[in-house]
């Protein structure tokens, strides 16, 4: 494959995770942290970045070791790699941002069990060279972080009337507390999925119409 072709392929792997195959909005993976820690923008952002870092590092590691790991023990090896990075990130967050770490609580260690991460190792990183694996991981991790941050921002604005702790509407705003509680997580995620699927289906419809119109010039 030419250099240009390789770059294009890497670019495709990168952007597919952001929109077309977004892990949250399309594959609906990693729902546990998605609903649990999206009650404020800063929590969601930290969780998103932590997951992104773990996914990227694990994919790089798994992809570069893919020819050395016997297939019989591959899942155990992926889990060891992922768990190692999660533990390291846990310590780093505890040292750098203790307040946010306190809020996130058990959900940082639970990144190990995020099926999106193990899924990318098995489905992609183990079968592709390092460059493509990195592009795929960055796209998927970025897509996850963006979705989490979007939901976190949405819930914080409605539920606390603030963004990153900065009050937006003044003292007269009555916070919509349910948005911060678990039901609010389900409601906001449902609304976001509804809007995005609507946009997606309209796009598909329009391109199908276009194809039909071009394919039958006689009509």
């Amino acid at each position, binding site marked *: 494959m030419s250099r240009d072709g390789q770059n294009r392929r890497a670019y495709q792997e990168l952007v597919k995770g952001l929109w077309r195959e977004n892990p949250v909005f399309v594959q609906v993976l990693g729902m546990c942290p998605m609903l649990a820690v999206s009650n404020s923008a800063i929590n969601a952002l930290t969780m998103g970045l932590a997951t992104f870092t773990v996914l990227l590092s694990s994919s790089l590691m798994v992809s570069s070791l893919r020819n050395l*790991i*016997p297939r019989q*023990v591959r899942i155990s090896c992926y889990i*060891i790699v992922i768990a190692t990075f999660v533990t390291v990130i846990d310590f*780093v967050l505890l*040292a750098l941002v203790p307040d946010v770490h306190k809020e996130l609580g058990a959900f940082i260690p639970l990144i190990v069990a995020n099926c999106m991460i193990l899924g990318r190792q098995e489905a992609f990183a183990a079968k592709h060279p390092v460059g493509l694996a990195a592009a795929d991981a960055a796209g998927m991790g970025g897509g996850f972080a963006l979705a989490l941050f979007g939901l976190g921002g949405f819930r914080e604005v409605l539920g606390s009337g603030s963004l990153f702790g900065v009050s937006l509407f003044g003292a007269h705003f009555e916070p919509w507390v349910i948005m911060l509680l678990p039901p609010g997580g389900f409601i906001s995620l449902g609304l976001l999925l509804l809007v995005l699927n609507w946009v997606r289906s309209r796009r598909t419809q329009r391109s199908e119409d276009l194809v039909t119109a071009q394919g039958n010039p006689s009509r």
Partner: protein
Amino acid sequence: MKDPIIESRRYEASPTRLVVTLGLAGLLSGLAIVSAYEWTRPRIEANHASALREAVFRVLPGIVGLQRWAQRGGELRPADEDRAGERAIYAGCDDRDQLLGFAIPAEGAGFQDTIKLLFGYLPDQRSIVGVEVLESRETPGLGDRIYKDQAFLDNFRTLLVDPEIVLVKNGTKRAAHEVDSITGATISSQAVVNILNAGVQEWSRLLSATRTGSCGQTLEQPSPSGRNATSG
């Protein structure tokens, strides 16, 4: 077409290789985790110590230095070293080197999980002068108002602990030992009151036997991060 059985044979690894691979993975993982732990530990410990220290200064207004106290030979006295499983409290000293009061850690069941808090206590006046929640997983927006709602925290500016602290309906606080509850978070407010009552109960006997007065020469800083504080 490739024969799947022949294909899988080609990738078959010997048992030794499997064990060695997993062993190596575990070893490398262990090394990485231990290095990360050792690398971040000083910072994490300093964070804990400074968070605790700041909390002590907030619950005991007017102090300029603090000492770690623990039970030694049946009575409370300054104890700098940390013994395993020991519970310590913190004495606050003012700028004339007089012992002002104690910051006491206490914990108990909240609505969702254990609430850990620190309260400032003046043994001479038998009153609480400040409460700081150190750890809680109370409901966001409702129960978390036990540390976000200033009106609730103002209950603890001067709160008598005798005969005991009582939670009353919001807006009906009349006596100096009553606490206005938070509307919508009665269980969390009650939890705070229960923790305070239990904490006072646990320490007041030891504290009443303790002489208060001069902080003396023993004023020491409990953590490396506390070096810059002025000692009385």
